Structure formats: structure tokens, C-alpha cells
């Protein structure tokens, strides 16, 4: 199932609904890279609240998406990392850097707004 992407002003919001297959991750990356150009988006928010596990594959995928988006001129913010998932990521020493993270959609929008003002 493809990840739904909403357009909100100059931002794109992708809500991951369930664990992604490798193919779906690549599709999301390409979809976002394409839409950044089409909508002249300055920021991307990826909601991972539905993910019950973030393993090294998912972390690497999110970083790949963010790097691709950055080359297209958009900043990426990850939102909705569940508390137990955050604990597991720390223990695993999984690193999302240089990705930005925020607690929820509202925080992410505020972060992107500040980012845009500075730019």
C-alpha cells in the first residue's frame, strides 16, 4: 500500500500507515522527490506514529529520504516516534542524525516555519 502524501501549504505530509516493505520505501522516496518539484515544497513531515518498530533498515530509509529531499531544497522532519520505540532506538544506538524530529505535527510545522524564515 503506497504511503498517502498530503499537501499542506508549502509542506508535504507523509503518514506511514504500517511497516513498509523495501519497495514501498523506495516508492515513498521517489514520490516525495517528485512532488517537492511539482509543488515547490520547502518541507516534508513524515509521521511514523504507526510504526511499532524502527530498525536499522527503517532508520537508513528515513535518512535516505531526507538526504534526497535536501538535495531538492526541502527540509525533513520525522514526527510521532512512540516512547517505547525511542527507548529501543537509544539502546540500539540507532541514529537519525542529521534528521530533524518533533513530537507531533504541530511541533513539526512550527519547526519548518522557523527553518523557512531563516532560509
Amino acid at each position: 500500500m503506497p504511503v498517502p502524501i498530503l499537501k499542506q501549504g508549502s509542506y508535504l505530509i507523509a503518514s506511514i500507515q504500517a511497516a513498509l516493505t523495501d519497495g514501498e520505501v523506495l516508492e515513498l522516496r521517489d514520490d516525495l522527490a517528485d512532488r517537492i518539484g511539482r509543488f515547490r515544497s520547502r518541507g516534508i513531515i513524515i509521521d511514523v506514529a504507526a510504526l511499532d518498530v524502527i530498525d536499522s533498515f527503517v532508520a537508513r530509509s528515513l535518512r535516505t529520504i531526507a538526504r534526497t529531499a535536501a538535495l531538492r531544497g526541502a527540509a525533513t522532519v520525522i514526527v510521532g516516534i512512540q516512547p517505547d520505540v525511542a527507548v529501543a532506538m537509544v539502546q540500539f544506538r540507532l541514529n537519525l542524525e542529521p534528521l530533524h524530529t518533533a513530537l507531533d505535527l504541530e511541533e513539526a510545522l512550527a519547526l519548518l516555519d522557523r527553518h523557512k524564515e531563516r532560509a
Partner: protein
Amino acid sequence: MIVVSDDVRLEIAADTDIVEARGEGRALAARLGFSRTDATLIATAISEIGRNILHHAGRGEVSIAEAADDHLLGIEVVARDRGPGIADVEQALSEGYASGNGLGLGLPGAKRLMDEFSIETEIGRGTTVTMRKWRERDALERLGDRSRRHG
């Protein structure tokens, strides 16, 4: 002594199998009274070793079982494949070792999420990873066990 109950065996041949395997692990962890956080640690470790199988061997299996001794209750996960084997286990378990996926977090990461972790491997024959996570059994659980044994 460690008693391991019947296991659930799952074929790992595609990434959707990994999702199923970690779901089984999470469900068993919950049944055994692990916290939600511990269940997530277990599910994440299963996810990593499942990916390891797919990446290096193409296919294999993961079995998940209950383990117990007098004071501890636990979950045992065994991942088997008949892949190429690991030439240098120490290196594979060291931080930042770049394996096929270029990230090298998988095995050392999984090891940190569990309490016990061991690898048996033979070049050209395959690899078996065994990992366990434990929790203390409370007095009531031990009492219930004793009365079952004697009753």
C-alpha cells in the same frame, strides 16, 4: 537449568516475513508479562536478525519460544540460515563494521537489545544466532509453578 517450551517457527524469505516474525515475538513477550518497552526491544532485535538472514543468506527461519528457570522467565529467539556463514564473528559484532547493507548496526544492535546473544557459524554452511531476554519471576508466579508441579 533452562526449560524451553514449544516454539513457533517462521520461514524468512521476504521482508513481509520479518514483520510477521516480530509480531509473533511481540505477542509472546506480552503473554509472558514483559513490559511494552521490553516487547519492543525484542521485536526490534527479531527484525534485525531477520534482515540479516535476508541480506546474507536470502532465506532462513526464525523460531521463538518461551524459556524459564526457577527465578527467570524469558523468550528465546533462534535464527537459522544456510547462507555463506560469517568469516569473522568478532568483527561482525563490532561497532560500525560495514556489512552488505553498508551500515553494520544489525548484529551489535540486536545484541544490545537482548540479555544473551550467541552466534554459531561455519563458512559455507550457515549461521545460527540464539538470543534470549529475561525477566524476574515474582513470588506469586514461583508459588503457582510449585503447586502445579506438586499438585
